[in-house]
């Protein structure tokens, strides 16, 4: 449940970026870096300060990548692939490859209970993710920003011709995606308060798989945040099911890959059936 909520949080951000017809491969690294930043900065800034600093850091990474994509006119696939490696490298350098953990007094902070505790036996992370789902869905389907984001993903030149500031919208989507990944990193640490250099490796692929399984079309303009969250639940439940069945852990990655391909084929077939030009 906890992992599904975390993955769902990242997948929703990913779905937003995919709906603008871009992709963000760096979310796994941003997730890890924000976690590392949160733990490292906690000593100086306190829990709340470290959380804000971590989110600001994530937002900056999103901003830099969006600028490279939009001003540098480099495909987002390339920019965020670079981001994936570069940010992971920063984690290695910053932590020196060591395992860091939060001191006891920080774990007792009220914010950590709010983010990592339980309510009615259910992890807080799930409530946070559901809250984010509600807010982001409202923004996507009921605000000008959401309308313009969907329009941009569906037909960029039309959005431009109607006076939409398309670069602003895309930049916001990238920043939101990075911040959601960062927030997921903090949620993770609130629950298991130690970080490792490999935290979040391959998570970008799981997030993309979850978003695509949830019905977000890679061609942009169509998708669902609820679907992304459900996709995260499917991936996670299969992971634990495979482990319970005694399958070697390595099979899990193969499964995600196969399901991703199957989901894309299924999406396209379904879209064709519904009469959309996918």
């Amino acid at each position: 449940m906890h992992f599904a909520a975390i993955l769902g949080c990242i997948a929703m951000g990913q779905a937003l970026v995919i709906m603008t017809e871009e992709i963000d491969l760096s979310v796994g690294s941003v997730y890890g870096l924000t976690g590392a930043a949160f733990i490292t900065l906690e000593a100086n800034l306190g829990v709340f300060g470290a959380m804000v600093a971590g989110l600001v850091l994530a937002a900056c990474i999103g901003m830099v990548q969006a600028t490279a994509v939009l001003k540098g006119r480099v495909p987002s696939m390339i920019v965020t692939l670079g981001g994936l490696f570069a940010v992971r490298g920063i984690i290695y350098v910053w932590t020196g490859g060591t395992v860091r953990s939060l001191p006891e007094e920080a774990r007792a902070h009220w914010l950590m209970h709010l983010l990592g505790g339980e309510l009615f036996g259910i992890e807080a992370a799930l409530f946070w993710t559901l809250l984010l789902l509600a807010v982001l869905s409202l923004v996507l389907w009921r605000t000008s920003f959401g309308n313009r984001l969907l329009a941009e993903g569906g037909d960029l030149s039309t959005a431009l011709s109607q006076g939409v500031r398309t670069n602003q919208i895309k930049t916001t989507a990238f920043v939101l995606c990075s911040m959601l990944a960062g927030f997921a990193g903090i949620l993770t640490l609130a629950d298991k308060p130690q970080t490792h250099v490999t935290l979040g490796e391959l998570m970008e692929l799981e997030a993309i798989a979850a978003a695509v399984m949830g019905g977000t079309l890679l061609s942009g303009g169509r998708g669902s945040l609820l679907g992304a969250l459900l996709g995260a639940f499917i991936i996670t439940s299969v992971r634990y099911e495979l482990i319970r069945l005694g399958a070697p852990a390595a099979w899990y990655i193969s499964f995600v890959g196969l399901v991703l391909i199957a989901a894309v084929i299924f999406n396209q077939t379904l879209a064709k059936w519904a009469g959309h030009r996918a």
Partner: protein
Amino acid sequence: MQKSEKTPLIEVKDLDLYFGMFHALKNVSVSFNAGELIGLVGDNGAGKTTLIRVLCGIHEPSSGEVYFDGQRVTAFHPKLAIEFGIETIQQAVGLCDNLSIARNFYLGREPVKSLLGLRIFDFALMRAKARHVIGEFGLRDNVSADDEVETLSGGERQSVKIGRAVEFKNRVVIMDEPTNHLSVREREHLNDLALQLRDQGLLVIYITHDIFQVHKLADRIVIMENGEKIEVTTTDAMSAEALEDVIRQGGRAVPKKVAVQ
């Protein structure tokens, strides 16, 4: 500048536009008045679309002046053109397939109301207006405001775009080959709408390859070739056949005595 009867709605003076080394528009000067239907014709690559892209803010001219309603235009962006009331209707652009008619209608200028401090859509208003346009502009009766644009025919799409141009009280409607791929009946419907817009006092600029069709519709015709304006004529002064000859042979065939400025 004093606004008078004589002030053209759009005036272009000595306009040059370069794309890198390519000289796309060469010293173009032309003026358009409100309540006029202008036919803009010329071969492919003549600069017709480039000229209107300047007018709707997509390209910034390299040199020259553009006046709107007597005011010098100094900044070029599609958003500004929309604020001036210039609406462009193109075959391929203008509506997003993946959005409903209501959402498309207000794209870029969505009406919002405040809910708990969050500015969300006024969906009731959006639907009502979209329904009104569906009824007024000849779409099928069973089309709903929530239908995605993808389900509309080519003619219905053009009708929605024209409906939008009218509902937002535009002053200029630029139609870039609006009747391509339309059926005969849809084409006639669209041309009727173009004339209605003109009669309501709007400036309509109509780009097409169909000389005979535009000759019937337009008040004045502007002929372009190789990025230059080679001729401006009224439809009374030049027959459609003569017009076609001019385009076929380039500026050489212009009979000087019928040329009017």
